């Protein structure tokens, strides 16, 4: 093992401690890697939507040895051998009380104890007192995010105080914030998420003029939404250094980078994922637009986590993604998914991202999570649809949307709708075996990128399909207004082999205010738990009109052969 040693003089301890505290607000583990060009401290959050990295150059330390001379190096890349991560809780106990540390600690020495396999932090305090903390660590691979901030067309540089004062105006429980940039002004707005009635929520907007910034470059008009909590964590650090903070970003869906690069002794970079919103319009148009936007906003951030032990690929942060294979953390997928749902709305998925995900089996966590278009090929969704189905208005992010595209005009005849809906979803008309249904539905996505069908299929789909088909059409018509959902979630439960998605009537809350939609669509199955409402999107089975006709009013949850035809 290499033996690293470094000493931080007392004056720099405040920065070091504050850096650790800000990383602790991002992730639960601190990645610690001493390299020749400095000590890297990194953290990433559970759903990979926020990443922080501090690089402390050797001149930050009064003494910096990253490893013993070459004879002890046995790594193949020749770099320092120590790559580990510490639990945040343990490292926070060392830097618990920063004001005390500031007053009493003269220097801090960090060393690796090879015999005991501990990372030793020694604080040399006044009066000769020495506090030694021997922390256990886990070896791991490098956590690295690949991001290109310099190519971003929008760049703002401000003193942290400006932004700190700005975010003070937002409520503490505000989750997300939208940064709007235009050539002549920049605004911060609180992000209202899926609120049924926008008038019932407090809207806060703060506008700043370009003069307030040290540098103001608005290349493209953009509205980027990201997590406020993480921004506060970054600002908490920036505030004590009083160094200018640079924000670089592009458009919604692309990550935003916050960096402090003007200090000679360290550099800080934070990358936050942004919500990708897609304006819903014409289904086809939207689909097209979405598709292109998705492709554009392919994940350009990638976490390379080459964990050998986890053979799987990186986590797909998109909540919509079933392929949320989180290797790194055993965090609850639902939570991450949910988080990702909130943080990043993805308007559809980017094929590019998807490909990357699938190709890079070893790593690549998309920082910028945009739901892959066909995320569900691999496994059933882990998210519960209801998480995603919230609100009907646009931008629809988390909702499960069913396709309603061309069906609207045919609402008067539910059967037709069904057929159309079915067609839209399924490439192949006709019966689809249940196991194929999933695939079919996915393939149908290609047709309508915007729509995400969340289908929950219970057993005996076959029977239901016809009846459901009827429902679907009505349901879909009702959701005419809904446009694409950023994320696609499929909770395809077992579909019966039908190709046409059937939208049960209970989906009414999924947003639809299509007046033209048949009234019957609005019916809800009595005593249906909400979950089912969302779940049963539809499962296309077949576009049989006759079945739908008879089914218009009732939502079929259980197969009933009587209703079929």
């Amino acid at each position, binding site marked *: 093992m290499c033996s690293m040693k470094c000493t931080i003089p007392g004056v720099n301890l405040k920065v070091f401690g504050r850096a650790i505290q800000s990383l602790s607000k991002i992730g639960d583990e601190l990645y610690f890697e001493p390299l020749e060009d400095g000590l890297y401290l990194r953290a990433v959050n559970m759903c990979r939507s926020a990443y922080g990295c501090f690089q402390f150059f050797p001149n930050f330390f009064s003494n910096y040895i990253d490893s013993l001379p070459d004879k002890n190096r046995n790594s193949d890349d020749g770099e320092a051998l120590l790559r580990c991560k510490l639990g945040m809780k343990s490292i926070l*106990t060392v830097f618990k009380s920063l004001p005390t540390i500031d007053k009493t600690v003269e220097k801090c020495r960090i060393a690796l104890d090879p015999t005991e396999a501990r990372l030793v932090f020694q604080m040399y305090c006044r*009066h000769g*007192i020495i506090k030694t903390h021997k922390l256990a660590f886990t070896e791991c691979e490098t956590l690295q995010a690949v991001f290109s901030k310099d190519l971003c067309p929008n760049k703002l540089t401000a003193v942290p105080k400006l932004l700190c004062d700005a975010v003070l105006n937002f409520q503490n429980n505000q989750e997300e914030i939208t940064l709007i940039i235009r050539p002549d002004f920049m605004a911060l707005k609180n992000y209202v998420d899926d609120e049924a009635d926008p008038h019932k929520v407090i809207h806060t907007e703060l506008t700043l003029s370009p003069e307030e910034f040290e540098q103001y470059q608005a290349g493209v008009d953009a509205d980027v939404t990201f997590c406020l909590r993480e921004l506060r964590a970054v600002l908490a650090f920036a505030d004590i250094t009083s160094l200018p903070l640079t924000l670089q970003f592009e458009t919604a869906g692309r990550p935003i980078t916050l960096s402090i690069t003007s200090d000679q002794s360290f550099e800080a970079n934070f990358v936050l994922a942004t919500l990708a919103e897609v304006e819903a319009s014409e289904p086809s148009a939207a689909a097209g637009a979405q598709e292109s936007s998705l492709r554009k906003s392919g994940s350009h951030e990638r976490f390379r986590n080459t964990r050998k032990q986890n053979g799987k690929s990186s986590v797909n942060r998109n909540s919509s993604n079933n392929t949320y294979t989180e290797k790194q953390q055993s965090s609850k997928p639902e939570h991450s998914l949910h988080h990702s749902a909130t943080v990043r709305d993805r308007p559809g998925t980017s094929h590019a991202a998807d490909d990357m995900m699938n190709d890079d089996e070893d790593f690549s966590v998309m920082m910028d999570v945009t739901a892959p278009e066909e995320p569900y090929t691999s496994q059933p969704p882990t998210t519960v649809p209801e998480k995603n189905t919230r609100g009907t208005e646009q931008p629809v992010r988390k909702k499960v949307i069913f396709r309603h595209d061309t069906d609207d005009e045919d609402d008067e005849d539910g059967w037709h709708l069904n057929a159309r809906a079915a067609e839209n979803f399924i490439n192949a008309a006709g019966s689809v075996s249940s196991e194929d249904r999933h695939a079919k539905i996915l393939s149908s996505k290609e047709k309508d990128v915007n729509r995400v069908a969340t289908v929950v299929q219970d057993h005996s789909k076959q029977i239901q399909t016809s009846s459901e088909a009827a429902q679907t059409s009505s349901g879909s018509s009702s959701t005419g207004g809904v446009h694409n959902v950023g994320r696609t979630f499929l909770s395809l439960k077992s579909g019966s082999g039908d190709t046409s998605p059937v939208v049960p009537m209970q989906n009414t809350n999924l947003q639809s205010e299509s007046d033209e939609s048949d009234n019957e669509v609005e019916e809800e199955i009595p005593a249906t738990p909400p979950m089912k409402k969302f779940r049963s999107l539809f499962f296309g089975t077949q576009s049989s009109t006759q079945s739908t006709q008879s089914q218009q009013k009732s939502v079929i949850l259980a197969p009933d052969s009587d209703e079929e035809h």
Partner: protein
Amino acid sequence: MLSTQRAGDDSQYLLVAKLDNARSVSNILKAIHFKDTAIIFASPMGIKVTVEDAKCVQANAFIQEAIFHEYNIKADQLAFKINLTVLLECLTIFGSSAVPGVCTSLKMCYAGYGCPLILMLEEEGVLTDCSLKTLEPDEVLDFDFCSTNVVNKIIMKSECLKEVFSELDTTSDVLQILMSPDEPYLQFSTFGNAGSSHSSFPKDSEMMESFQCSKTQTNRYKISLLKPSVKALALSARISIRTDDRGFLSMQYMIKLEDGQICFVEYFCSPDEEVNDGED
């Protein structure tokens, strides 16, 4: 005024103690308040209040008779058990926060075995009478800590230790105390989930007032037993740490009262047997 009103009645009491500022007593008693009941011993030298836990730890608060402005005792030794929580509530009946210039005066009376402890508190003309039931005193542990057995003794300023004790890793079961004539002289260690933490104090530090260590000793004590001592440490200005040949720990805290007088609080703790390295 209390004395004039009740001068005649006091003859029935075996113990009558008067104090101008009840807060002195209440603060000290709070420092040892980790159990509900306490044993009070009164002697011509003063009052000693003892609290014990698990037969392993004992805390004593000494309020010498000089602290009281009137102290009359008609017996050599009086002992009774009392509910310390209730006693503290009575002592702080006028509020526990310190309002400058306002003092609560206290008169304690005890008529003997089986009689209640009478408290009379007065603040700005408002008089409160309390009568607390007394209980049969339990046997208190005798740690048998005499000076001849003391192996290591350190007297130091409390200031730096306050930080150590307040930041103790609570995930650790034990606190290990090392005292040695050699490096690291005095070291407090915890072994928690995150790893181990050690705080060491050199013997020549300006915090050290006296350093007399004859032998290297490492002893472990259950943190849960020592946690209550942090209250006493917080009030104190100086602390004396002693260990004897069995590894028993004695921590004596010198507490300065508001009027400048000095009181002592003492904690005894027995070491953790399993990991008792004892004398090296």
